[in-house]
């Protein structure tokens, strides 16, 4: 009994992409309609009963959708030759670098911790609670400490921000990684023992490959968290060049150009979406063809 390859033909994959694109566009159009609809209806309500709405429908609080969209192609500042989209793209690239470094550090640390906790139940019991407690510390409180450390050593701000991002990303990797490393069935472990395979050979030939379906969801979460961590890190460190600083700047100048802050937030969301998409793509490539055990 030989089943067809998973994922279907190239044609049907293409059709799925087109469908996804159309759905995303439709969702965006729907959200825009809601936004503008709220502004119109809200304006009528505001005229009759002022101050009853939670969010004012005025153009300062809620700029028009087309103004937000238009701001992307307007110059960053009066007289500047660079348009906002390019400036945001550069800032996103800067943040992506920090986030990527943070993701890498977090993944290595998370996987390392998972392997250590697998190796020794003693370490598992000692480290487990601390790993959980680590995530209850607010990142915003932690960030200035890390940045200060960075400035007193050779590390510098970029690494500091990456470390802040790593602080968020290591957690899902460690937790899911450990669950994945423990996922092989007793018979699979007995099989490895019957081959007199060493602990490390069992790790690489069985436990790590078996952990991959657990790790990829963690990677997806970690990827988006790394962007959050990088932006929070930039804001609390006041580092120039990244989206965090851009958001901070436009928040400060909100009254003169509210649409720019919205544009910057959209850029941050797009960056998160991008890294999530990359993790998704990596998962599809790595696990391609393996199917599910039936």
């Amino acid at each position, binding site marked *: 009994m030989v089943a067809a390859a998973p994922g279907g033909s190239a044609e049907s994959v293409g059709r799925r992409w087109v469908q996804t694109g159309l759905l995303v566009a439709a969702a965006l159009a729907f959200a825009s309609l809601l936004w503008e609809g709220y502004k119109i209806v809200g304006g009528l309500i505001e005229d009759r009963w002022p101050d009853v709405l939670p969010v004012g429908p005025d153009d300062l609080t809620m700029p028009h959708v087309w103004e937000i969209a238009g701001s992307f192609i307007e110059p960053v500042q009066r007289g500047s030759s660079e348009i906002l989209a390019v400036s945001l793209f550069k800032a996103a690239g800067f943040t992506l670098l920090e986030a990527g470094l943070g993701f890498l550090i977090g993944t290595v640390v998370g996987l390392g911790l998972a392997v250590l906790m697998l190796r020794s139940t003693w370490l598992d019991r000692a480290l487990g609670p601390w790993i959980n407690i680590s995530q209850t510390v607010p990142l915003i409180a932690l960030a200035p400490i890390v940045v200060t450390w960075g400035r007193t050593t050779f590390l510098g701000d970029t690494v500091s921000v990456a470390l802040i991002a790593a602080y968020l990303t290591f957690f899902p990797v460690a937790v899911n990684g450990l669950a994945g490393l423990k996922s092989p069935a007793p018979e699979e472990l*007995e099989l490895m023992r019957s081959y*007199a395979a060493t602990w490390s050979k069992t790790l690489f030939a069985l436990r790590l490959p078996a952990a991959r379906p657990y790790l990829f969801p963690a990677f997806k979460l970690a990827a988006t968290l790394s962007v959050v961590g990088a932006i929070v890190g930039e804001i609390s460190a006041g580092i120039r060049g990244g989206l965090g600083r851009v958001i901070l700047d436009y928040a400060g100048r909100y009254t003169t150009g509210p649409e720019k802050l919205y544009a910057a937030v959209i850029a941050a969301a797009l960056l998160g979406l991008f890294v999530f998409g990359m993790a998704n793509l990596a998962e599809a490539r790595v696990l391609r063809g393996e199917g599910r055990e039936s």
Partner: protein
Amino acid sequence: MTMLTPVPAISIQGVGKTFNPDSDEQVVALDGIDLDVEATEFVSLIGPSGCGKSTLLRLIADLVTPTAGTIEVFGKSAHQARLDRDYGMAFQSAGLFSWRKVARNIELPLELMGWSKADREARSAEMLELVQLPEFGNHYPWQLSGGMQQRVAIARALSFKPRLLLMDEPFGALDEMTREHMQNELLELVSEVGTTVVFITHSISEATFLSNRVVVLSPRPGRIHDIIDVPLGDHRTEDTREEETYFKCATEVREALRHVGASP
């Protein structure tokens, strides 16, 4: 047939296994087991659940250590035999690694033993021929039926040509037709390679058809109740299943099982 071999393939003497000794949940899984298995012999272990047949197999495999007695495999300790990769193992679930293609699953033990890539590929191709799946090396396990997966698992267990094959209900999850077919194939395979086999099963017909001897175990604590010789010769075919001796031996096994107080 075994006079040429000075030592038996497996020698079990006074073996007992107690789980959680010195505690309230102490379980005596096996007690006073004496059993010799000659080289190239096919021995089945049968008995009601809780009779410790799985534990006995794992003791031979050195996956579990006995609390009493000694086990020798090819004249050395079970532990040394495991380190020397003297046996291959197959379980009820084929236990193929889903991320490895079929050929690479067969090559797994060879990889762990440090064989070169060329040698591994040559051997896995040879094994795929042997289990009649020559064109499936490049498939993933999920693309194969249960019977085919089990054949791959057997090919993997035999890939490094171990002298001993330990099987824990390998055909337990297969339908009756596939099962009988696999039994024929297994006999051909092990007689070709000259492998000693210890085989756990719940099926009286399977034990009778495959074995030179059927060991019937009784439960709680697991003890050897009876050992039934099956003199059906070394060349068994579909017709063997209709021979008088076959029925006579199957009846003996059934009666022994009834005596130990449970359906198998």
